[in-house]
């Protein structure tokens, strides 16, 4: 099964997929922006400021999702010593970090008209900031050591340790009294958001997911080339 992750096979897929995903991303993004900025209704309480949700929420979801994948892969790296898992984790981290920053900045901008402040040290915001620190430490761990084995171990431990923060982010609004409202979109409970808002939220989430896949493919391609460039030196 691990043969599916063989770099030779993956490179063929990457080359074919990259352009297709870029075109699809642009199309879905344009549709999502039109839905979010023009077609979707304003909120009865928050008025038009609710539109910030269409960039803030997908960015937060995807940064959490990417970190969870990196953490699970890190278990695989430590247990199976699979080198391709290392490449995948390294390639996922930059887009996850950027989505995390987008969630923090747009959340801060949304906070001003809604709560009257740019920043508050509430549980959700603080745990999201902590996630950005984990992302940063993960990416820096590849630059600190010359010895690759040390970098692999350190980055894996950071990702696994950071996994503890993921359920804290998710349930912080339920466990503590925070400025954030409880989640409106639920898998197991009733979704309390109206379909006219759920639709643009879904489209924007799809656009963001496509963008993260695109960046992942480009970074993965770059990481493979770095290895093969070293291989050419050894020929």
């Amino acid at each position, binding site marked *: 099964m691990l043969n599916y992750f063989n*770099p*030779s096979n993956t*490179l063929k897929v990457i080359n074919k997929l990259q352009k297709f995903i870029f075109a699809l991303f642009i199309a879905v993004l344009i549709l999502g922006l039109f839905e979010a900025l023009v077609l979707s209704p304003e909120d009865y309480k928050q008025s038009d*400021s609710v*539109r910030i949700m269409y*960039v803030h929420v997908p960015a937060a979801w995807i940064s959490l999702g990417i970190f969870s994948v990196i953490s699970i892969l890190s278990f695989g790296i430590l247990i199976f010593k699979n080198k391709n898992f290392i490449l995948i984790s390294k390639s996922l981290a930059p887009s996850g970090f950027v989505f995390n920053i987008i969630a923090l900045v747009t959340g801060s*901008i949304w906070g*001003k*008209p809604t709560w009257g402040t740019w920043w508050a040290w509430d549980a959700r915001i603080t745990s999201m900031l902590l996630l950005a620190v984990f992302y940063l430490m993960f990416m820096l761990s590849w630059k600190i050591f010359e010895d690759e084995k040390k970098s692999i171990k350190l980055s894996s431990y950071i990702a696994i340790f950071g996994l503890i923060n993921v359920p804290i982010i998710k349930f912080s609004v339920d466990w503590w009294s925070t400025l954030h409202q409880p989640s409106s979109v639920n898998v197991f409970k009733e979704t309390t958001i109206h379909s006219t808002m759920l639709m643009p939220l879904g489209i924007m989430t799809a656009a963001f997911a496509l963008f993260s896949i695109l*960046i992942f493919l480009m970074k993965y391609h770059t990481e493979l080339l770095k290895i093969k460039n070293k291989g050419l030196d050894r020929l």
Partner: protein
Amino acid sequence: MISEILNMNGYGLYVWSSFMFTLLSFGTLYFVTKIQLNKELRNFESKFKNLDIEKAEIAKKQEIYRGILSSTSTSKI
């Protein structure tokens, strides 16, 4: 209509700055990643060109190098 969209009931500054920041972040990440990828591709091409014939033949036989070369401008395969 356009001024309504721009004004957003007085929240235009917040809404537009959020969307602008997001799109700017996307653009920056895309171009930085693209530059890094192109740099590695150019590096690969120049190294491959400088290989002697024997080594180039060995490399061409490996599937991974064939895959990379097929995506470069100097592909001879």
